[in-house]
């Protein structure tokens, strides 16, 4: 016989009461961790997206800024091009404040036998000038070996491994590398091939594929620009759009912040809902616990008559709520984590915002904080009832009376 066993038996005696408390705390902790994870993911995604995309400005053809934003932020497959790539790249490189500029060409694989996988982003990039793809190449290639035109580097979500072969528009590519996981679908689910290889694939598509690609040899989809630290991205974008009215310069920071901002209102709504739910849970826990302790007065009185001190009674009631709420919070937090992890990609696509979930220490800290807040929410009202009941004399507890005023 131990205090722990006694607490467990008491909890199991009134299953309905225990289940009500468990459910209230399960929902509370699950909601808390889910909202916290989403908020953290959203906040984090602004900075991480900027870092992971590597570029400060993305120049795309005017009229395709929405498609480009969807493509970069949530990995929606899309294709658009602009002409005179070489000349434009040279002009940008000559602009004030530009540190590097690298072109990319986007092609979407077709749902036809000429492509191994359909509706996947094929990103043609220039290995010589690239600063976006290469940093994420797992282990780098041996001896810094240059990627050949028929080599493909795949994102972390692509199941095919290094050494495998993939066919796009009738042209076969050898998988020579895999990118590290970035948390961004654009990088994690794309196929990255040197521009030269993509251009050959486009040229050969007329004879080899069921669907011919009509992209000219001097067309690109976007030019990724990295600026010097002292350069002003907004001014650069304004100047560029003024000089090239058929182009749109997307600022990475603004792009991410704008889409993240669109989620601010629903997120505030969720936070308000949580506060209301939290208050309701506190009330429910307090009421259920008060009724529970009142219902057990006789039993608590017997324990005191047998020698239990006020502290023994408090310990028992506290232990019961710690066991119950600990288990409920653990289950709620685990479910919340699972839910968000499972549906984060879907959520990201739906709301068109990159969600980079916290990892490692940040995740551990967030989970610990959610656990502590949920547990304290359960303990506070329960401790109040426990403290109140533990001080009542056994005589009154046994008779089920509220302590009566005494004279003298």
């Amino acid at each position, binding site marked *: *016989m131990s205090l722990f066993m006694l607490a467990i*038996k008491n909890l199991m005696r009134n299953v309905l009461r225990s289940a009500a408390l468990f459910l209230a705390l399960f929902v509370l902790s699950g909601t808390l961790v889910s909202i916290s994870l989403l908020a953290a993911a959203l906040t984090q995604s602004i900075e991480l997206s900027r870092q992971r995309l590597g570029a400060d400005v993305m120049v795309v053809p005017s009229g395709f800024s929405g498609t480009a934003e969807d493509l970069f932020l949530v990995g929606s497959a899309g294709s658009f091009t602009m002409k005179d790539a070489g000349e434009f790249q040279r002009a940008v490189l000559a602009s004030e404040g530009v540190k590097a500029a690298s072109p990319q060409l986007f092609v979407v694989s077709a749902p036809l036998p000429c492509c191994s996988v359909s509706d996947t982003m094929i990103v043609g990039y220039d290995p010589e000038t690239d600063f976006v793809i290469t940093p994420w190449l797992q282990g780098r290639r041996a001896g810094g070996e240059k990627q050949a035109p028929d080599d493909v580097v795949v994102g972390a979500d692509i199941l095919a491994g290094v050494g495998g072969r993939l066919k796009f528009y009738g042209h076969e590519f050898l998988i020579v590398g895999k990118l590290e996981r970035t948390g961004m679908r654009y990088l994690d689910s794309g196929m990255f091939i040197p521009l030269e290889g993509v251009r050959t694939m486009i040229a050969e598509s007329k004879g080899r594929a069921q669907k011919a690609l009509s992209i000219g040899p001097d067309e690109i989809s976007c030019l990724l620009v990295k600026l010097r630290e002292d350069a002003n991205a907004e001014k650069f974008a304004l100047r560029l759009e003024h000089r090239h009215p058929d182009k749109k310069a997307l600022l990475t920071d603004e792009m991410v912040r704008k889409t993240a901002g669109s989620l601010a209102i629903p997120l505030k709504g969720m936070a308000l809902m949580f506060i209301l739910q939290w208050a309701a849970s506190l009330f429910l826990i307090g009421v259920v616990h008060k009724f529970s302790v009142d219902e057990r007065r006789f*039993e608590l*009185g*017997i324990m005191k008559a*047998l020698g239990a001190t006020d502290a023994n009674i408090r310990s028992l009631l506290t232990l019961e709520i710690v066991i119950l709420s600990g288990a409920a919070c653990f289950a709620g937090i685990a479910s919340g984590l699972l839910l968000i992890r499972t549906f984060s990609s879907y959520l990201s696509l739906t709301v068109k915002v990159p969600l980079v979930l916290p990892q490692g220490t940040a995740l551990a800290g967030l989970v610990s904080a959610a656990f502590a807040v949920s547990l304290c929410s359960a303990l506070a009202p329960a401790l109040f009832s426990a403290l109140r009941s533990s001080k009542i004399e056994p*005589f009154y507890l046994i008779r089920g009376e509220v302590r009566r005023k005494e*004279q003298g």
Partner: protein
Amino acid sequence: MATPQITVVNLRKQFLPAGEEATALDGVNLAVDKGEYLAITGHSGSGKTTLLSILGGLLRPTSGTVSIEGCDIFGLSADGLARYRVEKVGFVFQSASLLPSLTVKENLLLPSLYAPRREKGRFEARALDYLSGVGLLPKADAFPGQLSGGEARRVSLLRALMNGPGILLADEPTGDLDEGAEQQVMALLETFHREMNMTLILVTHSKDIALRARRRLTMSRGRVLEGPA
């Protein structure tokens, strides 16, 4: 002359239910020697249960003192009073008062949770020994709901004895039992009183039960009307 084990001096207890003063005990004086067998009788509301509860440390008096072996128990802290309840006194309630979620054996082991020096093995052995002695060993793992009234009352009595108290206080221990069960419970009480040289104070409505005691007191309106018989 030996000092009494229990000395009660000018004990008063007043309640104020709904603004109306009610005197439960009105200047009770009492001395009980170690090993005595005392029966307290009286009408409902005469103050018997209140007196027994104060002797058991379950209720603080309004005024007066209760000394057990020379120690004023209401001069003790709340923890000290709890220690008195676990070490010195056993209490048998009007109802069986067993915890329904615990088995018979676990109910007997409950006081061991609060004993200052817990020796789990010793308590377990004692619980099984007691149950065996009253023929309830086969019911050790049964829950209180599975016991008859007499069985539950005997288990309740055994639980009061688990810590080896020097004083046993019994409040209507056979109140709702049939004659057969009443005789069993009384026999058990008296056996322990005799064999362990324990002071036994019982409150009863029954004159037959009171007559079994060596000393009898009657209470009325919070006062002890008769002295030792």
